[in-house]
């Protein structure tokens, strides 16, 4: 399941997408009731989604009292959905836009991931397997720019700043792109064995120096400092099996959580720069063991003491 946490001040809501290898999938939005410690799905806020959504994300900076919130999903296209909280007259979920970046009508490259720019919420960057990254201006519904980012498929994208994003791809590199200077990109890290794909990327939004990435079939989480490219700050190696997802703490600068196939979610504290790294690696601070391999992990930005994990066909919210 792919899901996201919503940065809403009110009780946390999660959008959960199903992963059925078929055309028909659904996205459910559930609310978590903190007091009752229970999920309350909202049936009217459940909608069909063609193909499994590879990522879901709510609008990072919603207006405080707006009646509706925007949810974006990526599949074969980037879709924007508007969820209306109140009001019975209007439909609860409407598809606001389908953003299709293919030039021909026949094919589109499926999107592997996308990221909503916190600093400039009208920008969404998408990554796709046709090696390009597309930056959308969702207010105009048009492409701002499209870059050929890598030599191979791009697997993840993350914004750092209003005009800067980074992406990882199957060619094993993390590259930073600056929209002001589209001709150049900088490789910040490359996987040690060439052509080991890097599957996911997370940019620490509180401390933009750090990024975390995970390699394919590897139990390591690589922390990279963007000021010193090519040499990772740390490699977190305490997982017993390969890592599936990473997420930085939304408000603390040095905490990161990772989850993997060993069914564990580990919270680590990345050492401050300049501090010595113990020779046998950094130990995580906290651990949670789930019953099955954890496939997805999200650290809620609005409720920083909740982490959501998805394993098997369950979703759990963990309190930190």
């Amino acid at each position, binding site marked *: 399941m*792919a899901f996201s946490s919503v940065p809403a001040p009110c009780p946390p809501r999660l959008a959960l997408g199903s*992963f059925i290898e*078929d*055309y028909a999938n659904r996205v459910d939005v559930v609310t978590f009731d903190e007091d009752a410690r229970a999920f309350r799905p909202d049936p009217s806020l459940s909608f069909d989604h063609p*193909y*499994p959504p*590879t990522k879901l994300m709510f609008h990072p900076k919603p207006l405080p009292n707006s009646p509706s919130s925007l949810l974006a999903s990526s599949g*074969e296209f980037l879709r924007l959905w508007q969820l209306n909280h109140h009001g019975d007259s209007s439909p609860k979920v409407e598809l606001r836009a389908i953003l299709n970046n293919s*030039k*021909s009508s*026949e*094919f589109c*490259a*499926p999107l592997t991931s996308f990221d909503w720019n916190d*600093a400039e919420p009208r920008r969404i960057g998408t990554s796709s*397997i*046709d*090696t390009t990254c597309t930056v959308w201006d969702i207010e105009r519904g048009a492409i701002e720019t499209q870059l*050929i980012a890598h*030599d*191979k498929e791009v697997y993840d994208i993350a914004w*750092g*700043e209003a005009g*800067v994003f980074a992406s990882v791809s*199957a060619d094993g590199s993390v590259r930073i792109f*600056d929209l002001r*200077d589209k001709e*150049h990109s*900088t490789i910040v890290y490359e996987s040690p064995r060439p*052509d080991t*794909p890097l599957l996911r990327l997370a940019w620490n939004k509180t401390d933009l*120096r750090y990024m975390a990435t995970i390699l*394919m*079939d590897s139990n390591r989480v690589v922390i990279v400092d963007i*000021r010193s490219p090519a040499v990772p700050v740390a490699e977190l190696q305490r997982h*017993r*099996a*390969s*890592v*599936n*997802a990473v997420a930085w*703490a939304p408000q603390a*600068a040095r905490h990161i959580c990772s989850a993997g*196939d*060993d*069914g564990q979610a580990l919270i680590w504290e990345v050492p*401050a*720069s*300049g501090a010595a790294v113990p020779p046998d690696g950094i*130990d*995580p*601070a*906290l*651990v*949670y063991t789930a019953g*099955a391999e954890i*496939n997805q992990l999200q650290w809620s930005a609005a409720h920083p003491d909740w982490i959501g994990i998805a394993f098997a066909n369950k979703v759990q919210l*963990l*309190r*930190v």
Partner: protein
Amino acid sequence: MAAGAGNPEELPKKHLRKQLAATVRNIQWSYAIFWSISTRQQGVLAWSDGYYNGDIKTRKTTQPLEFKADQIALQRSEQLRELYESLLAGDNEQQSTRPSASLSPEDLTGTEWLPGKALASNQQIWLSNAQFADSKLFSRSLLAKTVVCIPFMGGVLELGTTELVLEDPALLQQITTSFWDLPISVCSEQSISSPPLAEKDEDILCPNLDHEIVDTMVLEDHHLMADCLAPLESGPAAIPFGIHSYAHDEENDLIQDKAEEPHTNICEELKIGSSDDSSNECCANQQANDSFTIEGLNGTSQAQNGQLMNDEISNSLHGSLNSNDCISQSFVNPQRFLSCPAGERIKNHVLDSLQEGDYMKLISLDLDGEESHYIKTLAAILMNSKQLTEIPCFPSGSRESSFVVWRRSLNTPKPLSTISQRLLKKILVDTVWMHGGWPLKPQEEDGPHNKVGKSEGDDANASHVLSERRRREKLNEKFLVLRSLVPFVNKVDKASILGDTIEYLKELERRVEELESCRGLGDPEPSGRRMHPDIAERTSDNYGNKKIANGTKPCANKRKAHDIDEAGVEHHCVLSKDGPADVIVTVIEKEVLLELLCPWRECLLLEIIDAISNLHLDPLSVQSSTVDNNLAVTIKAKFKGSVVASPGMIKRTLQRVVELAIIISMQHSSKLLWL
């Protein structure tokens, strides 16, 4: 004195003047003059700026006081400057020289006179090189009753008043502080008072930084702030080198905020702005913050692009890149200020040297020129990043947590699935096949993809192009084969090949039908044969360029007819007896297909070709073979020119040729017999 007054930047000058004005007004003295170190002469102070706050009483300037007092005062300041210039030229003794300027000393009132003595006194101060907080009071009857000269910011600030004021160090301090603090000002200045830089010496300031400091410090109006803001905002973008410390701050926002918010709020904000790792022990005022350094130096950024890296590096003073990002900058409230008068100066020079040290470090970090793009990016990221409070992530034991503390000895379960990262890979990799049109094979992440009909092959990577090309080649190959199977296909474009094939197939089917019916009826072959030209011609009417290939089929049919139809065989035999050839001519517009079966004779082929060319036919291809003393020829020919011979004519011609050939050969042989 262009040296002093003609500063490269207009802005600082105005600022200075306004500062002076404000200061003087503040303490209600008569005038304030700032003397700065002359760039012209060694050891001489030059007039920097002045402001007069008193009455104007010379006869030269009997202007109505409709001008604002400011303007008048400024004007007067100008005049004073001129006077001073002249005085200086005259080597500054009080009444030694007679200036030829517009003003003569006597013109000035007691309050206005700008004495060489003051200059002298300044010089004295200057020459004695004390550079200490010094002040002198003069009581002179001619002059302002009190003149205070304060060494200040690398120059001397002179203030004068008509009243007799006793020496008052407190006043001095107040002056110096109030110099910076402007009544209208919305922002406070900063001083960097980081511990390692602790020094109380006020005036070791690089002179060339004076103006910049002045620049930044005086943010009195919105205008000024706007001016400052503009260079500041472009500053970060112009910084060529990245920030190698945690040079975060919302400095731009901060400054803009200042415009709107009251003073105190700013201080609070900045206090809140948390720092980073190692600065926790600093006092409340401290923020890991170099914004004002940047601000300060940005004013010169346009002038001194080269040294821009200095500012952000100022944070990384202590060698390691960010071991100490804590250059605390305490925002100075006027209320709070008096505690450390010396602290308010920006220790720019110290920073300067440190910056340069770090500059070297930067260079040693192997950043070559090509990385400048990245560095710009880094600068952008790190400058604009907002600094958030570090909320402690784990309140220890205050609430229940789902997590437990990690211990190495914890027995963790082995991987539960044989395929690692199964779902993740599925999301990333296998979604491909789910979308229509993509190939179904499970794709290796690092293998080339086979994309069917992807029109974005140009954009995709090279492997897509290759596979696309392969596909195309396969198709082309098959088209070629088809073309060779279907006669009469002379055009190479795929559409026509396909079209011709279709027609050929239809034709064949028709013929099969006929033959089957023929077989049943026992129709002689000639009828079949006769049909061919008709068919050919008919078809040529109906289907423009499309060729209906009768091809070798007629021959084959003929032969079949031999087998099946006795009449055909007889015919054939008859033909061979008579000598004429078995000729089938198919004409489609300008193209002709000739099939000839005849007894073989020497040079027969040449004759045939000759005859054909006489018919204005251009042979394109000739297939001939001799089987059982029979010559079978298939000729594809094209009419050259506009003359088109009818099939019948061609046939007759050919038959004649064959007959002729036979006759000749028979004659030959008979001649031989005769001989």
